[in-house]
C-alpha cells in the first residue's frame, strides 16, 4: 500500500487525536468502570501510539476514526480477558469490577459512530462535585479533552508536578466514590450538571483571557469549552435553559475573539474592533441558544452574562450599544454573584451611562478587595476611568500597577502602549 498523500494529511483534521482520545476513553471507561480510569487512559493512549507505528509507512487510513476505534477495541478485549483471568484469582478485583458490568458489550460498541453520549458521561465523572474545582478542570482537560499533563500545566499556568498530583488525587477520589457511568439521576442532576457547567465556564474564561497570546494551548480552551458544552446540551436530560444560557454566553463572547487582535498582534478594545470581523455564524448560534435559555423561569448568572454578551454582539457600533440595558443586567448579576470581578464590570457600564466620577466612586469599595490586587484589569480600568476624568498622572500610576500584574503578551503590549500615549507619562 502507498504511503502518505496530500489527502492523507487532510484526513488528519484539527485536534482529531485529542477528540478521538476523549471519545475512546469515554467508551473504555464505560467498559472498565470509572474506578479504572487509569487503565482506560493507558489503552486509549496505546491506540493512538499504534497509529504512529503504522501510518508513517502505510499512510493515514481512509477512516482514521474507525481505524483507531478498532485498535482500541482489540486492546480492550485483551485487557478485559486478562482482568477476568486475574479475577478468578483475586476476589478483591472481582468485587472492584462489579458483577454486572456488560464490559464485552461496551467494548463491542467502540466504533466510528456515536458514543458522544459517553463523552458527556465522562464529563460527569471528571466533574463530580466532590472534587475541587481545580481538580475537575485538570481531570476534564486530561480525559475528555485529551491534553497531556504538560499542556494542562501550560493552559492553567501551573507546575506540571502540581497538575500530576492533582490528577492522581482526583482519580483516587473517583475510585472511592464508586460512580456509575451514567447521566446522574434526576435527584442528583441539578448539582452534578451545575458542577459540569462551572468547569466549562472556567475553561472558557481561561481561554478567553489568553486567546491570541503566545500560549497556544491556553487560547484553544474557548473552542474546547464550546465543543464540550454543545455535547452536554445534546443529552436529553441536560437540554436545560441554563445549559443554553452558558452556550449562548460562550458563543457570543467567542464571536469577537478574532477581532480582538490587530494585524500587528496588539489587543483591540471593544470600541476599536472592526465589527465586520465578528463571527456571524457564532452570533446567530449564540442568539439561538439565548432564545432556548428563556424557556422556563430559571435566571442564572449565565443568563445575565449571555444577555450582556448579546447586547454587545447585536450593537451596530460601540456608540449604539445599549449601555443602560447592560448596566441593568450587571445590577442583577451583582445580586446573584456579588464577586469583585462582576463589580468591576458593573463599574464600566456605569461609566458608559453616568461618566467616570460615578464609576470611580463605585470602585472605591471594590479596589481594596484582596482577590483583585494582582488582577491587571482592575488597575487598567481605574487607569481608564482616571484618564477619562482628566487625571493623567493618576491614570499613569494605575497603568504601571496593571503592568506589575500577570497578563498575556498582547495585554501587556496594550497596557504599555496605553501608558505611553498618556500625556506626561514619558518619565
Amino acid at each position, binding site marked *: 500500500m*502507498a*504511503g*502518505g*498523500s*496530500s489527502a*492523507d*494529511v487532510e484526513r*488528519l483534521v484539527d*485536534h*482529531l*487525536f*485529542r477528540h*478521538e*482520545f476523549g471519545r475512546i476513553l469515554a467508551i473504555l471507561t464505560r467498559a472498565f468502570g470509572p474506578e479504572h480510569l487509569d487503565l482506560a487512559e493507558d489503552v486509549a493512549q496505546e491506540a*493512538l*501510539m499504534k*497509529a*504512529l*507505528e*503504522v*501510518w*508513517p*509507512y*502505510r*499512510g*493515514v487510513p481512509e477512516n482514521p476514526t474507525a481505524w483507531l476505534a478498532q485498535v482500541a477495541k482489540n486492546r480492550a478485549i485483551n485487557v478485559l480477558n486478562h482482568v477476568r483471568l486475574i479475577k478468578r484469582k483475586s476476589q478483591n478485583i472481582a468485587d472492584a469490577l462489579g458483577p454486572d458490568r456488560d464490559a464485552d458489550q461496551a467494548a463491542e460498541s467502540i466504533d466510528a459512530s456515536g458514543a458522544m453520549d459517553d463523552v458527556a458521561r465522562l464529563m460527569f465523572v471528571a466533574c463530580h462535585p466532590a472534587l475541587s474545582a481545580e481538580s475537575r478542570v485538570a481531570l476534564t482537560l486530561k480525559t475528555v479533552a*485529551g*491534553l*497531556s499533563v*504538560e*499542556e494542562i500545566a501550560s493552559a492553567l499556568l501551573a507546575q506540571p508536578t502540581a497538575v500530576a498530583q492533582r490528577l492522581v488525587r482526583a482519580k483516587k477520589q473517583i475510585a472511592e466514590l464508586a460512580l456509575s457511568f451514567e447521566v446522574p439521576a434526576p435527584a442528583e442532576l441539578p448539582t452534578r450538571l451545575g458542577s459540569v457547567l462551572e468547569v466549562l465556564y472556567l475553561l472558557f474564561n481561561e481561554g478567553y483571557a489568553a486567546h491570541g497570546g503566545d500560549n497556544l494551548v491556553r487560547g484553544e480552551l474557548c473552542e474546547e469549552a464550546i465543543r464540550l458544552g454543545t455535547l452536554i446540551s445534546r443529552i436529553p436530560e441536560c437540554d436545560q435553559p441554563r445549559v443554553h444560557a452558558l452556550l449562548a454566553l460562550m458563543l457570543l463572547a467567542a464571536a469577537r475573539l478574532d477581532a480582538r487582535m490587530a494585524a500587528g498582534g496588539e489587543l483591540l478594545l471593544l470600541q476599536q474592533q472592526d465589527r465586520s470581523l465578528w463571527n456571524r455564524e457564532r452570533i446567530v448560534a449564540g442568539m439561538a441558544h439565548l432564545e432556548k435559555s428563556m424557556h422556563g423561569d430559571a435566571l442564572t448568572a449565565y443568563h445575565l452574562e449571555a444577555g450582556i454578551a448579546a447586547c454587545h454582539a447585536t450593537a451596530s457600533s460601540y456608540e449604539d450599544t445599549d449601555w443602560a440595558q447592560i448596566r441593568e443586567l450587571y445590577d442583577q448579576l451583582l445580586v446573584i454573584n456579588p464577586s469583585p470581578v462582576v463589580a468591576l464590570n458593573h463599574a464600566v457600564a456605569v461609566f458608559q451611562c453616568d461618566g467616570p466620577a460615578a464609576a470611580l466612586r463605585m470602585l472605591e469599595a471594590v479596589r481594596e478587595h484582596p482577590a483583585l490586587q494582582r488582577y491587571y484589569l482592575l488597575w487598567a480600568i481605574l487607569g481608564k476611568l482616571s484618564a477619562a476624568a482628566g487625571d493623567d498622572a493618576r491614570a499613569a500610576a494605575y497603568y504601571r500597577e496593571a503592568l506589575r500584574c500577570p497578563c498575556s503578551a498582547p495585554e501587556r503590549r496594550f497596557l504599555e502602549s496605553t501608558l505611553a500615549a498618556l500625556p506626561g507619562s514619558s518619565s
Partner: protein
Amino acid sequence: MAKYLFLIQHKPDAYAGLSPETMQDILRRYGHWVQQLKDSGAYLASEGLANDGRTLRKEQDRLRVSDGPYVESKELVAGFYLVEARDYEHAVELARDCPVLERGILEIRQIVAR
C-alpha cells in the same frame, strides 16, 4: 539511478507519554515528508516493523530462537522507506526532512545492484 533504503530507527519508547496533539503533529509531518518523496518520484515503498521479533542463531549446531530485538534503551529499526536516488548526496537530500530525526536516527543504505 539506484535504490536506497532509509532505515528509520528510534527507541521503542520514543513515543511514550506524548500528548495526542503532539502525536498527530508527528503524523502530519510524516504525511508531508512522504508526499514530497512521491511528488519528486523518488518513493518506491515503505513499511513499519513491530517492536517484538525473533532472533535465530546456531549454537553448536543447535538452533536457538530468542525473543527480541526488543531492547528498551536501544535504537531499533522501526520501519523503512525504499526510494530511488541518483547517489548518496541526493538520498541525503531526500531524507533530511524526515520527522524521525527529532527523536531518532535515519540510516541510508544503497541496495547493491551489481
